[in-house]
């Protein structure tokens, strides 16, 4: 019994990891649409759609959403910062109580991440509210039982 349970658990962990990463990837890819002049807040509805279509549970939605948005904003900013040699981030950092360039990058990532995490979670829970929940038990339910 223990073994089976362990297997089930690791399988569902794997599935959840996969789903989290898929969510992150979807947000990262779709989020690049923002390059074409979409306003920043479009990330939230975008993440909502991803949350609806791609996620299997709230955890995957939130963490996958966060990871996707974080990477999207962090990497984009990091590339700019890198080619700029950190000139501008050092100055803008001074505007924000003297934080360092890398801290600005982190703030950027976290803001992007939270935006998509919340968006994806909303999408997930919207689906759970409006559409009958999937028959598959998710990881949490497994554990509670």
């Amino acid at each position: 019994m223990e073994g089976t349970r362990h297997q089930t658990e690791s399988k569902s962990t794997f599935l959840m990891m996969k789903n989290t990463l898929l969510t992150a990837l979807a947000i990262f890819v779709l989020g690049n649409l923002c390059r074409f002049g979409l306003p920043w807040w479009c990330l939230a509805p975008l993440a909502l759609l991803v949350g609806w279509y791609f996620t299997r549970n709230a955890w995957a939605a939130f963490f996958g959403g966060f990871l996707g948005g974080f990477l999207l904003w962090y990497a984009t900013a990091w590339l700019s910062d890198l080619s700029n040699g950190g000139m501008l981030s050092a100055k803008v950092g001074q505007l924000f109580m003297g934080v360092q360039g890398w801290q600005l990058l982190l703030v950027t990532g976290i803001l992007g991440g939270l935006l998509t995490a919340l968006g994806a979670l909303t999408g997930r829970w919207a689906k759970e509210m409006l559409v009958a929940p999937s028959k598959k038990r998710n990881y949490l339910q497994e554990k509670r039982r």
Partner: protein
Amino acid sequence: MRTIKFILALSLTTLFVWQLAQPQQLGDKTIPPFGSFFNPFSGFWTNAEPAKGFDDVSRSLPGLKGKVEVVYDDLLVPHIFAENQEDAARVQGYVTAQHRLWQMDMTSRKASGRLSEVIGEKTLRLDRLARRKGMVYAAENDLIGWKKSPKTMALLQAYTDGVNAWVNQLSPAEWPIEFKLLNYAPEPWTPLKVALVSEAMAETLCTWEDDLESTNTLAALGRETFDYLYPEWNPKQHPIIPDTGQWADLHPLLPPPFFADSTRSLGFMETEAPEEKYLSDGPIVGSNNWALSGAKTKSGKPILCNDPHLNLTLPSIWFQVQIHTPEANTYGVSLPGVPGVLIGFNENIAWGLTNVSHDVSDWYKIHWANAERSKYSIDGEQKSVRFSYEKIGVKGQSDFMDTIRYTVFGPITYDFESENPLRDCALRWIAHDVPEQSTFDVFLGLNTGKNYEAYKNALPGFDSPAQNFVFASRTGDIAIQTQGKYPVRGDQQGRFVQEGDRWANAWHSYIPSNQVPSMKNPSRGYVFSANQHSTPPSYPYYYLGNFEDWRSRRIHDRLEAMTNATVDSMKSMQLDNFSQRAADALPTMLRLLDRTQLDAEGKQMAEELARWNFRYESELLAPTLFEAWFDSCYTATWDEITALEKRGQSTVPTDDLLASKNQKIALLYPDAWRFIEMMQTDSASVFFDHPATPFRETARDIVLESFKLTQAYFKEHPENRVAFGEHKGFVIKHLGQIDAFSRFGIKLGGHRTAPNAISKANGPSWRMIVELGDVVRALGVYPGGQSGNPGSRFYDNMVDTWANGNYYDLLFLKSSGDVSTRILGKQVFNPK
């Protein structure tokens, strides 16, 4: 449950998005909405330009007649190669906007009283003042004058269209970072804004006046004392144009029959001094320029130099540009927002500017005929004011409505401040006038000029702000002209506030342009100006102004002694930290100082000062000590005036003084040169006496007393006993006062009384040296960078070069195909 979870998530998301869309308060700073600001696709990160390389671009530009190539050098100077002047102007507008758009926006906003729209209530007073000084009125009148020349108006329009071609294709991601920080969008450029930028320059350069202070001081001290303390002519001065007999048969226009006595009848202009005025030592903004004839130079060719001193900002006030057209090949500095080159050179001539500093703004006391102040009396008749209703947008608030009254003299500026002593006065300012000709004809004439005749023909169209135009040509001519529009004044007219109830007091005529002081090829082999008096008193017109007393004497002495001048000797003059004021004052003060009254420490300080060579070098302590001693000595001497100002125990009993106790009144302090002269020749003057003490002090006592005070001060504050560079605390502030985009901590020598006139926030805003000849050799540097973007490597890259006293060889290209290792890349513009 599911519904609750959903609502929870939705609310959280909405709240978070809403929060990110709000401007944030961080201490006393307002920070833009985080969402748009941090968004790496369009927020501040997109302003982080690559630190290397340059992307060549080719694009079409509507309105172009031919192809235009722009070659960028390693300082990001655009070298524009166009097939005609209109195309050149169009592309100049485009590239200037590309690098300096926010600065252009800010300058025009400040001049037109539209800062509050984007900043908020804290700039409301500034905005009201800008409008109440009639800045927009002046700019509109400029346009009327400029339209007299369809040719230059077409260039102006092309420049404007070029700016807008850049503005219109901008996506929010490409906005300069300041727009993102202040959270507002760029606007189209207009010809009116061009006029506003030039009026902003006029405001900086020709709004100086001491009318109120002089009026009060005359009322308080009486004529005799007033004339003793405030003589208008410094006999040690070397005027720009010396008297060589050229005015002997000049027939001057008669001054108006103004009522000189009307000034006295005004008495005190009560209530508070509007602004803090201190040690009167000549203008804070000033400049040097000079030209040497071939006889004075090693190469045998003329050399021309110019360093305009202005408030130093980032982005810098200047933008370098080369403009090559079939008509001319011109290089120099331009004002962002204004077409053409303002100070520069071409293959044949070079020219430079300094401020003439004449007083061309007068105050007239208006006599209201009714309580609503809609009518006023003049020559016994009643006239109606013209009302101008101004709507001032204020960020975060409803619009502010202001009413401005215009009289025949000009606008009533200060009637919105009931305590302001000038509240009933109308401002007559030369910059309000419709120009006789287009200012751009003048600069186009210089830009494309080939010889002295071109220079001489171009200048008379230039009205305001009056400038000393220095000139040199390849063929060996040098010249200078104090060009501007000046009212013909009666003796001392305009020195004091005048009665506005008599039309006779107004300006009625102007000095004819052929009588404006000028000089060509003097036998001494040089011409120069440093904002000093234009002429000696023998010039047949009365004028007054805020004239410089020190730099000009030093520059005169050096030029007089100079032979075989080279570019290097010119550098050493521009970088000269020698102060004539210190050289005049310090030996006198040391001579008056009774050293036997000093303790060992004091004697040491006196020796330190005695060893000083009068140079404000950054690493020296002596200039710090001297500054403190001189200021203290000056303050101790003029305690009578300070007491009067505070309406304390005054020695001058007048009824006027009692009129409003407890209020500070605006008074004039004597010029430093007069103060030093008094120490030298009249050390027993009553003004060295402290009225409050039973003793009769002389200059000796004051010098000793202030020395001891200075010594005690530095003992008490050893942290301030530092080398001069540190004492000065030089700073180049960002135009929007953003510290993160400013430059602090550069330790520099120089002083406003030395040719290298670097003060705390002012200084040589462009140092230029041009040696004419078959090949022009030109050097230049300004404390900034070509790009206005703090995220660009060209934002402040020239600051250190400037601070270290170095120059760049200006890359003066002959064609767009020239090969140079200094070329960075190319932009090509094609007709659409």
